[in-house]
């Protein structure tokens, strides 16, 4: 039975998240977010979402961690001490409660009778078989959802443009 493994991973996720919030040393907090990503990737593998796990491990635990460490080397690695942290705590608690309330309407995990498994998924699986591409995720991303993925490429492009504009490049930029 897989449930205990997932429960264990969720418990580790919870511990990591609390540590990220508690830690004052931002370097350590960055490493904890990397661990958080790696644990999430493990969960995604257990849920058979290997493509997502791949991305989470490479982006969340890899590149994003390096980038946040790079940002910290520019700014400083100690979190400033602040008083009166009640308001953020209330906001986070309310948001979390709203999210949990939102999941109550979602189909149960692994429910074969969920709407998406009865209408969209069979169509995608049939289409993918017609195209002779075994990985349905690739068919959906590149062909069925071609416009979406095109838009995502543009998002990456725009993000890079934003970083170039902020951090500067070329001869005129100050080091």
């Amino acid at each position, binding site marked *: 039975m897989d449930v205990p493994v997932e429960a264990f991973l969720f418990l580790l996720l919870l511990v990591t998240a609390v540590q990220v919030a508690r830690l004052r040393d931002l370097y350590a907090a960055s490493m904890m977010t990397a661990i958080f990503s790696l644990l999430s990737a493990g969960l995604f593998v257990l849920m058979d979402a290997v493509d997502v796990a791949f991305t989470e491990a490479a982006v969340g635990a890899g*590149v994003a961690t390096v*980038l946040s460490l790079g940002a910290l080397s520019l700014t400083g690695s100690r979190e400033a001490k602040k008083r009166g942290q009640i308001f953020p705590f209330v906001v986070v608690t309310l948001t979390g409660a709203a999210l949990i309330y939102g999941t109550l309407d979602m189909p149960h995990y692994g429910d074969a009778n969920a709407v998406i498994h009865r209408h969209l998924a069979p169509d995608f699986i049939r289409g993918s078989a017609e195209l002779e591409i075994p*990985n349905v995720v690739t068919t959906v991303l*590149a062909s069925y959802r071609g416009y979406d993925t095109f838009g995502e490429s543009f998002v990456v492009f725009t993000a890079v443009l934003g970083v170039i504009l902020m951090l*500067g490049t070329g001869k005129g930029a100050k080091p």
Partner: protein
Amino acid sequence: MRMRENTILRVAAKSLLPFFFLFAFYVQFHGDFGPGGGFQAGVIFAAGVVLYGLIYGVDAAKAVIPKPWVEVGVALGVLIWIATGVATMLEGGRYLEYGKLDVAHPVHGQHLGILFVEFGVLMAVASGMTLIFYLFAERGR
């Protein structure tokens, strides 16, 4: 960027790097059959460059993958997407209707189209992540 003396890290990174890049291309070209695709391959490729840059210094990484390449690569990746869409329109189809790339064999056309756009994603993501890393690392000096 101050790890130049650390022999263990240098040796370990150097022996791992070929597999990083090989794995990136495996993920790219095996994306039709197994998990993965352009985005994942691009990130793994960029992670290889970032690892090299972390251990050997950003200048060494820039000697392998020059900054102008990645600057052009981001735009080129998106352009490949646009060009694929325009090509299908010139063949009389709708935008990104890959089947029209090979009128006699629409299935083959779909394979071609997916290959092109996945390559576009690979270029945009790999170049983009590498460029962001370069910019952060340059700024830190």
